[in-house]
């Protein structure tokens, strides 16, 4: 007998359905020519996932802050009743639906579906479609899994999986060397973050393995259901230094994923992937996972004040730093990519200042308007075949829907009332402003964030005016632009609606329960209103400046040797971070490998000749098997032996006598 049941219990379908789509499209895609090489299959599964995801989110809203956890022990190691883990330890997997995961589910499944639908039009002419749709489906599965993870270890596993999907999708146009190298770069840089994250988990594990009830907590992989208040804050005891270190390591992981300074270099280059991928993975969902991690960690682990300061500093600085690089860029996608880094900086700033929910609020609205901007940019690129803003122009006439969509996205990003971005950004700045009295050290980062409002409005409208305003395109060789089919304009319009209205959703009490304790809707006192006024004024000023320099087909060109010249060069070279990383990262690693290989191959050969003389007779007898090398292997064996003898007979006793070990 069927009985009314909550879909909560079926949350495992959310990762499962796209995973199924991955398998089907991956295996059968090449045979499904009629269905866009499996594209429509992926869209169908994406739609089903969206329906379930939104449904679950609505149920969560109505349950007013409930936790629904489905847990399974994947495997465990038996304990022997004594020692640090008397009952052994285990890897637990499960799905946890709680307010913030429900909020993330809306973002992931809705944007995921819209991007899949849009891809049908955008990717139509590309080869390798089965691979594209299979990987995108796998990404959706992994991202849903990450959002629904019920413990830190499971979270980490999905965290790695979304990273792998991102790597493959950035490198989708692998014939282009720049795409291949961008994929590699993204992989390397985010991996630095991943390792830091895992080290952070290690530190928690090592610290809490031994301390009473927390031992059970650690032994089960740090389940999030410990409660929605900072668990470690109470148990911190004498471990505050250790906790600070662990918190910084978690911040490192988040910085890698969310492209925060100094691990920001990979995201602009990730634009080598298809624009749809940029919209979904590198704007709305995966890059936001870092912020989500920080929010989750601040909710159930708790950060020390030192951690908080570091997070605020990273977030505030990144928001400003990335915005400056967007000012001069001529590539429409890269401008938006820098903007993403900058906006993620805002969210990090909010979480660090102790307003995780406000950060998530901005994450929510940002996902929609940034995906919208990317998809609108994609529509432009699809139509004119270039990403260079200085070749475009006048597209507003031929592409009205796209122009409208970009305008909505731009206004939302700039924080113009009443678009979505205004509400969340305003709330964010007001929250941080509220803490300034208690933490004066936050002042510089708050001011950076405020200045960013001006820069943001300027760079996004610079892009808007360059692409859409004016009489005609600047490069006559470009094809005549025209609007694409409904599969592309439909998602644009849907996202435009969300970019306008999503900011108001938290004013509905049921929806506000997804952001518990955020003080949403915000309280508007005098100082908050004044702050809103200031930030609106800054945004309007940015738009005005952009219009006066670039509006209506004007193109402002600085004299080449003006005072701004070197600054411009510095910004275009991205403050030389990428060059420095290339030098120390890749070259360093491969250099090390080459050195080891050199030792193994040539130095050995070198010593062989010496040894051959020493063992002349024996060597002659062995010559017919060409293995003077053997003597050398033996030499290594013996030298290893000598070293061990020295160690065990001389060094170790000496260390023991001096108490060194």
């Amino acid at each position, binding site marked *: 007998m069927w009985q009314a049941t909550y879909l909560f219990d079926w949350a495992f379908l959310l990762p499962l359905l796209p995973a199924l789509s991955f398998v089907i499209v991956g295996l059968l895609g090449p045979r499904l020519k009629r269905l866009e090489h499996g594209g429509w299959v992926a869209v169908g599964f994406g739609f089903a996932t969206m329906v379930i995801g939104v449904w679950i989110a609505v149920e969560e809203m109505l349950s007013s802050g409930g936790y629904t956890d489905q847990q399974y022990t994947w495997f*465990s*190691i038996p304990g022997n009743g004594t020692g640090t883990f008397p009952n052994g*330890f285990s890897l637990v997997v499960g799905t946890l639906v709680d307010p913030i995961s429900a909020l993330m589910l809306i973002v992931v499944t809705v944007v995921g579906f819209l991007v899949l639908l849009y891809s049908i039009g955008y990717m139509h002419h590309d080869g390798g479609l089965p691979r594209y749709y299979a990987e995108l489906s796998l990404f959706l599965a992994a991202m849903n899994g990450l959002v629904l993870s019920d413990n830190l270890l499971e979270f980490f596993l999905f965290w790695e999986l979304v990273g792998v999907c991102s790597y493959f999708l950035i490198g989708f146009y692998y014939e282009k060397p720049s795409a291949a190298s961008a994929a590699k770069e993204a992989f390397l840089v985010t991996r630095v973050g991943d*390792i830091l994250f895992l080290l952070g988990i290690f530190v928690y594990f090592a610290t809490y*393995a031994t301390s009473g009830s927390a031992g059970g907590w650690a032994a089960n992989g740090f389940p999030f259901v410990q409660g929605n208040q900072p668990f470690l804050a109470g148990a911190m005891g004498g471990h505050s230094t250790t906790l600070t270190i662990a918190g910084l390591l978690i911040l490192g992981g988040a910085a890698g994923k969310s492209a925060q300074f100094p691990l920001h270099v990979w995201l602009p280059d990730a634009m080598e992937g298809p624009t749809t991928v940029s919209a979904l993975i590198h704007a709305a969902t995966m890059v936001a996972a870092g912020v989500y991690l920080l929010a989750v960690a601040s909710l159930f682990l708790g950060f020390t004040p030192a951690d908080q300061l570091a997070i605020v500093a990273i977030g505030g600085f990144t928001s400003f730093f990335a915005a400056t690089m967007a000012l001069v860029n001529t590539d429409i996608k890269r401008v938006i990519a820098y903007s993403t880094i900058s906006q993620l900086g805002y969210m990090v700033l909010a979480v660090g200042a102790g307003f995780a929910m406000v950060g998530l609020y901005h994450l929510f609205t940002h996902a929609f308007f940034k995906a919208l901007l990317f998809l609108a940019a994609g529509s432009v690129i699809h139509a004119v075949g270039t990403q260079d803003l200085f070749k475009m122009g006048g597209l507003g006439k031929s592409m009205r829907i796209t122009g409208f969509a970009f305008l909505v996205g731009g206004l939302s990003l700039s924080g113009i009332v009443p678009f979505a971005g205004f509400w969340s950004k305003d709330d964010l700045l007001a929250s941080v402003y509220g803490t300034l009295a208690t933490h004066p050290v936050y002042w510089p980062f708050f001011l950076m964030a405020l200045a960013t409002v001006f820069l943001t409005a300027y760079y996004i409208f610079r892009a808007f005016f360059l692409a859409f305003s004016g009489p005609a395109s600047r490069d006559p060789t470009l094809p005549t632009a025209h609007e694409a089919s409904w599969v592309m304009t439909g998602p644009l319009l849907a996202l435009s609606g969300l970019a306008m209205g999503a900011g108001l959703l938290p004013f509905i009490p049921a929806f506000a329960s997804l952001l518990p304790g955020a003080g949403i809707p915000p309280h508007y006192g005098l100082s908050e209103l004044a702050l809103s006024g200031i930030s609106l004024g800054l945004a309007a000023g940015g738009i005005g400046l952009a219009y006066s320099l670039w509006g209506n087909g004007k193109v402002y060109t600085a004299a080449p040797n003006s005072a701004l010249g070197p600054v411009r060069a510095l910004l275009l070279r991205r403050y030389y971070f990428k060059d420095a990383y290339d030098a120390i990262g890749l070259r360093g690693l491969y250099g090390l*490998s080459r050195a080891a290989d050199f030792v193994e191959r040539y130095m050995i050969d070198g010593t062989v000749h010496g040894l051959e003389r020493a063992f002349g007779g024996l060597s002659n007898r062995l010559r017919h*098997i060409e293995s003077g090398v053997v003597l050398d292997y*033996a030499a*290594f064996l013996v030298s290893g032996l000598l070293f061990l003898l020295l160690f065990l007979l001389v060094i170790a006793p000496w260390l023991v006598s001096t108490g060194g070990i």
Partner: protein
Amino acid sequence: MDLGTLIPQFLPEFVLLGAGLLILLGERVGLERREYFGALSLAGMLLAFLLVAADLGTPGMGGLRGVSAGQVDGAAIPGALYGFSSLGLWFQEFFLLAAGLVALAFLSRPSVERGAAVSYALLIFATLGMLLVTLAADLVYLLLALEITAISSYLLVGYTRRDPRGLEAAMKFYIIGALSAALSFFGASLLFGAYGTTSLSVIGHSWPSGSGGLASAGYAFLLVGLGFEVTAVPFHMWAVDVYDGAPDEVSAFLAGGTKKVGLFAFVLLFTVPLLLVGSLSSATGSARESIQLSLVVLALLTMTLGNLLALLQPEMKRLLAYSSISQAGYMLLGIAVGTAPALTGASLQILAHVLLKTGAFLVVAAVSALGIGPLVADWRGLGVRRPYLSAAFALFLLGLAGIPLTVGFVSKFVLFSALVQAEGWFLWLAVAGLLNSALSVFYYARILKTMYVDKSPTAEETAPARSGEPLGADGLGWGRAGAIALAAVAVVALGVYPQPVLGALGTAAQHFLSLGL
């Protein structure tokens, strides 16, 4: 010690011995076809596998049980040459698994080949030696059993006799192996000189009282001799040449099978000294810590250098050889820590490596049988040309990299968790292992990219298979395809549902350690 008790206790070993002798006899009476020898070997190994399973106390197999329940994990008998631990019996199963996979894949070599019978017999004798090692309670017994394996494998490397590369590899292997054996025996004699006994347990408990210096030197010699077996850096250099020169199936057996026997010898030799670290007076305890420190240094060197050298290898077999060296480092790390979870992790890592490395080398065998060159670059576009074979190889690589849903993930997870849990400076070992894992992903990913993203070389696409007669299973040969499929299924099955094996290994490791005390 009469035959009446010896035969049931050593029934699996006797079965193997019988199978090996029958094969040699069969060749004498004129049997030629590989299929006969292969079937006999597989039957013997399967029977031995079941008998060992019965000895482990598997429910429903009581009738086959030769070792009584009280003897497994029973208290050590003073002066005994051998004893039965459930951990040792589990390792017997691992070794039989590796040997079985290789025997199965061997079936796909040419049906009538010079040395076919001998190669099967040698495979069986090597396995027999490995089984005997796991039961050792005495140093001389241990080294003799190791020699059975070692001598069989020298011969196995060169069994084709025609191939100069194989012969050269066998010769190198033999020379270095003999030197290592000499060092091991010398070390054993030093230990005997120090304590007047060859009982592993007594030696372990005595050290470093009395003639500490003599015993330390003995341990140093043994570390080198066994370090050779497990390809620990800097005693690893033979491995790359030998794996490279040996017939592909034999490489699979060396990397997936015989190397692990050295690791179990490490477990036998060093568990007692390691267990007593810290539990004795500070001077004695610290002296034991120096053994631990030497093991840790070897382990760190092994995994780091193995990984660094694998990074730029252009040849597939050499790359896999270096990767195999680095994997030995992880296992040594688990052994060096010496807690029950760490030993569990190391054991599972060994099982994972048996499946993954044997599988990977067997894919290399299959690919070279298809006439594809030895370079990584020759595998370009294999994902399109050979989807199933490529999928299996990709799975093995993912397993070696420790990706979830493969057994490699479970084993690394348990191992690293155990290191973190062991506290103190072991945390840094986990960090080192982790960084190494991250490093290894680069070269595995490079192979994956070569297979799936790069375009096929056009000229070689049509190159004919090397052997004259067409083989079943799409040119791979049924034996090879079966062995690869079996390993792949086991990799996923143990990755998805590891609990039965993991739990049993965990209990076995606990019993083993409590036995040492």
